[in-house]
């Protein structure tokens, strides 16, 4: 992504070969390893979480003893239909229970994961039955609560306290006390430790003394059944009998644990794809660490052919470097108090069409159906709002003429002259509708002023020591008019804690906009010769989503945690627990 900062390669640097390498032709195509790495590798945005539950002051429904409560967990899809996913065990005779069974859920940043909790008092006659077999309508309902997963994760100690309510009693004005449910989240990544190793072999020999060897290593994890699963492989070195490969980065998770037995195989690269096995070594990471400290070498052996023993070779494997470091994840930074601050800029250029006409992109449908701008605001804002502690979102418009004044390319959506913030997603929606009535659409479409204002906010926050990362959402219907000025603003902002999401609405041809997204092209260059230090822009054309479909905006959001963690790591900023 045009990122110049060094980053964990996880062995990927060698797999598939960097396009840049002068000797690029030697990069072996080993699809199985590539796919394996991608599915387990650095880009995985899915963090496994465990939720544990406790409650206080539950209602007492049993006559002779206290309630025997159990929690049932539901997930709620976009259309509001709850699906049961989990039940805890039954705690006997307690109004302040702590349940032991934990619910495992995968945290997905780009989705609003709504959870619904029901607490039931399980009747005595069912106490011997497996929890899964219980019929809920035969139990006593004690109360319910709901929340979003990211709400739990952004709390300082990752515990959220919810008041329990009775769903049916919507007409009753005063709700009797039903107690509280406490939900606590734990990230269950076994280890965040990454190991960096430099491996070297000596005296590699092959079929005959004079043949050329182009060696590379494959490190695999052994499993009980079947063939070892490759975890990473090195680059291929040309014609080298004493190769030293570039550093290999392995996350402990990729191999299981530090003591998991690994197979390190040395192959001779063959352009036909059938690489010859020169020899192998079976060691765990802990063993490799010992090799490093002793400085000794380990002899490779050639695996047993039928009827023969292993043949121990003269060649040896040495470990020249072995170091471990901790890689913090996005959730770690959240736990340490980092925040994502949401900012939004809306295109008010005349190309949107007269807002009073139904075919305008800014048309406010009296039936309540959201227009494209409103949909985009809600989709992105809904996810990001939980990561912002004060829910004050700067909101701007551009390309319009406010009531008295010239065309402005960055005016406060709330109509104020002094501050640009609104409260909550509702605040953005209200400011948007009132701005539509109070400005006249004009043009041209310029992003420079809005990006510069957002960059200023980000750098001021930096100067004040804030642990904030800013996300600017620009919703536009057309192609930006002054591309160079926009590029200049982006390049200047590329070193700040800022990401820019551009959503294109309407039917225009957005091909030029894709230039701004370095994923699809080269690194951006300003008019002064400065090049963007990182790719901070993501662009996607917005398609109206029918219910049930996955939105393209989600794909945009999915990249944010990586952009955030990469920014933090490149500066060695560690989360302060």
């Amino acid at each position: 992504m045009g990122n110049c900062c060094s980053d964990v390669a996880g062995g990927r640097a060698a797999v598939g070969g960097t396009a840049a390498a002068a000797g690029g032709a030697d990069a072996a195509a080993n699809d199985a390893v590539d796919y394996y790495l991608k599915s387990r590798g650095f880009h995985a945005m899915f963090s496994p979480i465990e939720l544990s539950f406790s409650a206080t002051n539950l209602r007492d429904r049993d006559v002779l003893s206290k309630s025997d409560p159990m929690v049932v967990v539901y997930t709620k899809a976009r259309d509001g239909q709850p699906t049961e996913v989990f039940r805890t065990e039954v705690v006997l005779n307690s109004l302040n229970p702590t349940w032991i069974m934990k619910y495992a859920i995968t945290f997905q940043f780009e989705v609003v994961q709504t959870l619904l909790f029901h607490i039931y008092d399980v009747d005595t006659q069912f106490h011997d039955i497996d929890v899964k077999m219980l019929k809920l309508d035969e139990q006593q309902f004690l109360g319910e609560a709901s929340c979003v997963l990211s709400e739990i994760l952004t709390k300082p100690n990752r515990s959220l306290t919810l008041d329990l309510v009775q769903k049916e009693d919507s007409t009753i004005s005063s709700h009797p006390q039903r107690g509280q449910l406490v939900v606590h989240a734990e990230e269950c990544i076994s280890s965040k430790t990454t190991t960096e190793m430099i491996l070297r072999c000596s005296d590699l020999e092959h079929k005959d003394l004079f043949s050329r060897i182009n060696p590379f290593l494959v490190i695999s994890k052994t499993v009980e059944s079947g063939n070892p699963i490759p975890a990473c492989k090195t680059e291929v070195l040309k014609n080298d009998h004493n190769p030293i490969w570039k550093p290999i980065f392995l996350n402990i998770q990729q191999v299981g644990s530090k003591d998991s037995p690994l197979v390190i195989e040395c192959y001779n690269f063959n352009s036909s794809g059938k690489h010859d096995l020169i020899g192998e070594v079976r060691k765990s990471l802990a063993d490799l660490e010992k090799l490093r400290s002793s400085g000794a070498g380990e002899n490779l052996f050639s695996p047993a052919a039928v009827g023969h023993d292993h043949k121990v070779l003269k060649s040896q494997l040495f470990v020249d470097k072995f170091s471990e470091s901790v890689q913090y994840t996005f959730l770690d930074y959240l736990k340490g108090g980092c925040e994502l601050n949401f900012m939004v800029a809306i295109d008010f250029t005349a190309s949107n069409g007269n807002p009073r006409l139904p075919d305008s992109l800014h048309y406010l449908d009296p039936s309540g159906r959201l227009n494209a701008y409103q949909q985009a605001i809600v989709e992105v804002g809904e996810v990001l709002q939980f990561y912002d502690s004060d829910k004050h979102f700067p909101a701007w418009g551009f390309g319009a003429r406010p009531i008295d004044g010239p065309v402005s390319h960055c005016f406060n959506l709330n109509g104020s002259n002094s501050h640009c913030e609104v409260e909550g997603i509702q605040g953005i929606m209200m400011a948007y509708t009132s701005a539509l009535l109070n400005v006249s659409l004009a043009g041209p479409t310029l992003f420079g002023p809005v990006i510069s204002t957002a960059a200023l906010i980000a750098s001021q926050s930096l100067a004040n020591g804030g642990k904030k990362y800013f996300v600017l959402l620009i919703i536009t219907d057309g192609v930006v008019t002054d591309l160079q000025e926009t590029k200049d603003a982006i390049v200047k902002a590329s070193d700040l804690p800022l990401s820019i999401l551009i959503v294109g609405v309407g039917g225009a041809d957005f091909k030029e906009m894709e230039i701004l997204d370095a994923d699809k092209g080269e690194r951006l260059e300003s008019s002064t010769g400065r090049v963007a230090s990182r790719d901070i822009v993501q662009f996607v054309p917005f398609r109206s989503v029918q219910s049930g479909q996955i939105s393209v905006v989600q794909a945009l959001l999915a990249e944010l945690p990586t952009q955030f963690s990469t920014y933090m790591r490149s500066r060695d900023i560690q989360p302060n627990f």
Partner: protein
Amino acid sequence: MGSTSRTLEITVLSCEDLRIGRKWVKKNTYVMVRTDPLNYRATKMDTEGGAYPSWNQRLSIEMPLHERFITLEVHCKTASGDKTIGTARMPATDFMGGYLPENYLNFLSYRLRDAKGERNGIVNVSVKANLPEYLSSNDNDKKVSEINACSMTSKPAPAIPIEDGKNFGFVTGIPIWSKNHV
């Protein structure tokens, strides 16, 4: 008496897509960081990176406050001698001034141009401008800027010896504070 220069810690990271003529550079590249013709520092030579060399080497250079640019020159040692294959100018405003906090670690990249003005690759550096000497103290506790009090703590930079480059005409003096000095 105030200092008229600041110390910059420039870490020369890497370069991309370096060519001589049309062909990719094979090896032996290094970068020279200059504030004026007489004041410069150079990295070690990268012998194997080819067109995508990397050094990750930190250089310390004094920059007088009136200087507005730092020049980055990428050199290649070829059979026919030392060639400057690309130059870029880094304005001081990119890493000082504005709203960026003191001691902010800036990651910057620039387009390199050869002697004819043609584009020739990109150079990646990181720059940290240190406070002028009279504002800093020998107290290591104060290394982390007060502005960042309770939040982001970046690792304090280890002491760096001044690289051997030539620095004619400027005397670098470091004030000595006694431990009991208030």
